[in-house]
């Protein structure tokens, strides 16, 4: 599963699924090779915004040869993408990084955890694990639970919200602790850094294998610039220092290997 190219993506559809969160379907060559948890770099057309925007792949549709990107408008680049309409083209660097090791966890009790804009890549992961014993824990700020219905197609779903308006009041780990019958063998997660730190700690304390997807400001996306590194516990095989490239060795890491 290695496809790497600058693709001309054709927009199939785009809709705002929540306040400031957009769901964009594009048809591009790399879509069929994309794995759960990989990401793409989307290039803005505006020349004052130069760098690609790393956006996780939410899911793919192999029959249509398309991929879905669900992203939050955070600045000028994503603002531009939010105006893309059907049949527009968009340049993307696809596919980047290593995704979740879905083939290695089959037959186990798998817990997926997504927090906020870290939820989208977990949908494709749930889809890739369809038929397995999968439990998705999704953490939101409030009752705007974008994408949560779609997880129901592939997994059991447990919600948490910061304001307590839906599901368990608190975060995804509070929701996991509340569901006493779920005993995960493995956790796969994407979300804000405090959530990932807590999951790493929880997994280590409870002897659970955990894979976490990290993000960092990125320039090249292909491992050349060393902009997006993360501290590692041991010396990294590529860098020969205690730093690893999130875009290339990640974004998904075994939680015990990174120092976050």
């Amino acid at each position, binding site marked *: 599963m290695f496809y790497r190219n600058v693709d001309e993506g054709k927009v199939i559809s785009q809709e705002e699924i929540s306040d400031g969160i957009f769901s964009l379907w594009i048809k591009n060559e790399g879509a069929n090779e994309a794995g759960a948890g990989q990401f793409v770099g989307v290039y803005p057309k505006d020349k004052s915004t130069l760098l690609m925007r790393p956006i996780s792949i939410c899911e793919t549709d192999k029959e249509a040869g398309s991929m879905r990107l669900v992203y939050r408008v955070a600045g000028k680049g994503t603002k531009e993408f939010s105006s893309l309409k059907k049949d527009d083209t968009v340049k993307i660097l696809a596919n980047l990084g290593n995704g979740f090791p879905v083939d290695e966890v089959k037959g186990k009790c798998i817990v997926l955890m997504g927090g906020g804009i870290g939820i989208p890549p977990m949908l494709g992961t749930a889809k890739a694990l369809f038929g397995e014993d999968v439990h998705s824990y999704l953490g939101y700020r409030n009752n705007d639970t974008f994408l949560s219905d779609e997880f129901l197609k592939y997994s059991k779903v447990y919600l948490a919200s910061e304001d307590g308006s839906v599901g368990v009041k608190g975060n995804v780990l509070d929701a996991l602790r509340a569901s006493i019958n779920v005993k995960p063998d493995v956790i796969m997660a994407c979300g804000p850094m405090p959530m990932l730190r807590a999951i790493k700690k929880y997994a280590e304390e409870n002897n659970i294998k955990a894979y976490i997807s990290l993000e960092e400001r990125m320039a090249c996306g292909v491992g050349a610039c060393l*902009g997006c590194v993360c501290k590692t516990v041991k010396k990294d095989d590529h860098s*020969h220092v205690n730093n690893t490239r999130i875009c290339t060795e990640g974004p998904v890491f075994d939680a015990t290997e990174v120092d976050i």
Partner: protein
Amino acid sequence: MNTKVTIAGVEFKNPVMSASGTFGSGMEYASLVDLNKLGAVVTKGVSNIPWEGNPTPRVAEVYGGMLNAIGLQNPGVDVFIERDLSFLSKYDTNVIVNVCGKSVEDYIEAVERLNDTNADMFEINVSCPNVKEGAIAFGQKADALFNITDKIKKVSKKPIIMKLSPNVTDITEMAKAAEAAGSDAISLINTITGMKIDIERRKFVLANKTGGMSGPAIKPVAVRMVYQCANAVKIPIIGMGGIMTGEDAVEFLMAGATAVAVGAANFINPSAMIDVIDGIDNYMRKHNVSDINEIIACV
């Protein structure tokens, strides 16, 4: 149509190369770019021992460019020779190894280790704005630059290119010092020191507070400095700073550069260097230029 240029006796099939730090050692981009088409690959800075670099965030976008404060993370010269240089030996392109250090001894140790490799030239990084010790300390005072150039030149078996910082009062003084100490060529400009503040969080965007600015917004500064240096020294100049297209490259050649390097553009368009090479060819055809050397320093 001739696109070959020669720098310090080393012939380049065309004048386009990568700017150090933006292209790894070519390996990272090899599936996207045919390295055989490039005039040279200039590798990411390498030091005598592995360097960890700076904390993150290390990069930030700014209007028309970007800031970086990577801090010269590299695996050290031993791994570099074994892995990166052997990889590059498979390609039909020149290899220029960028060398960094914290002391004169560091630079000398790295150069001595690299002397008997397939590297064609060494580019000496005395202008990285993102490391506290060494590096730029040698590139902002003419006497310090003379001293380190002289010492490296004495041990180097390959031609050396001193890479100059734009963060000086008069870059021609630096160019003259490098030339006087025996540097075979100079390259300029390294990045311009900048800063970005996140006004919502009231914090610096980069962990290092400052970073080096690159990208199309810095091009006019770079063209001006290349022109000034070309009029101050006789040694060849490799020009860089914001080159995005063949037309940009032609501008640098006309200002007096013998070759050009493409940096941030690689991030924006992985085939940027190929586009620059094709763009130069198109310019030459359109303007009936039969030899690229005709336009070097023509203004």
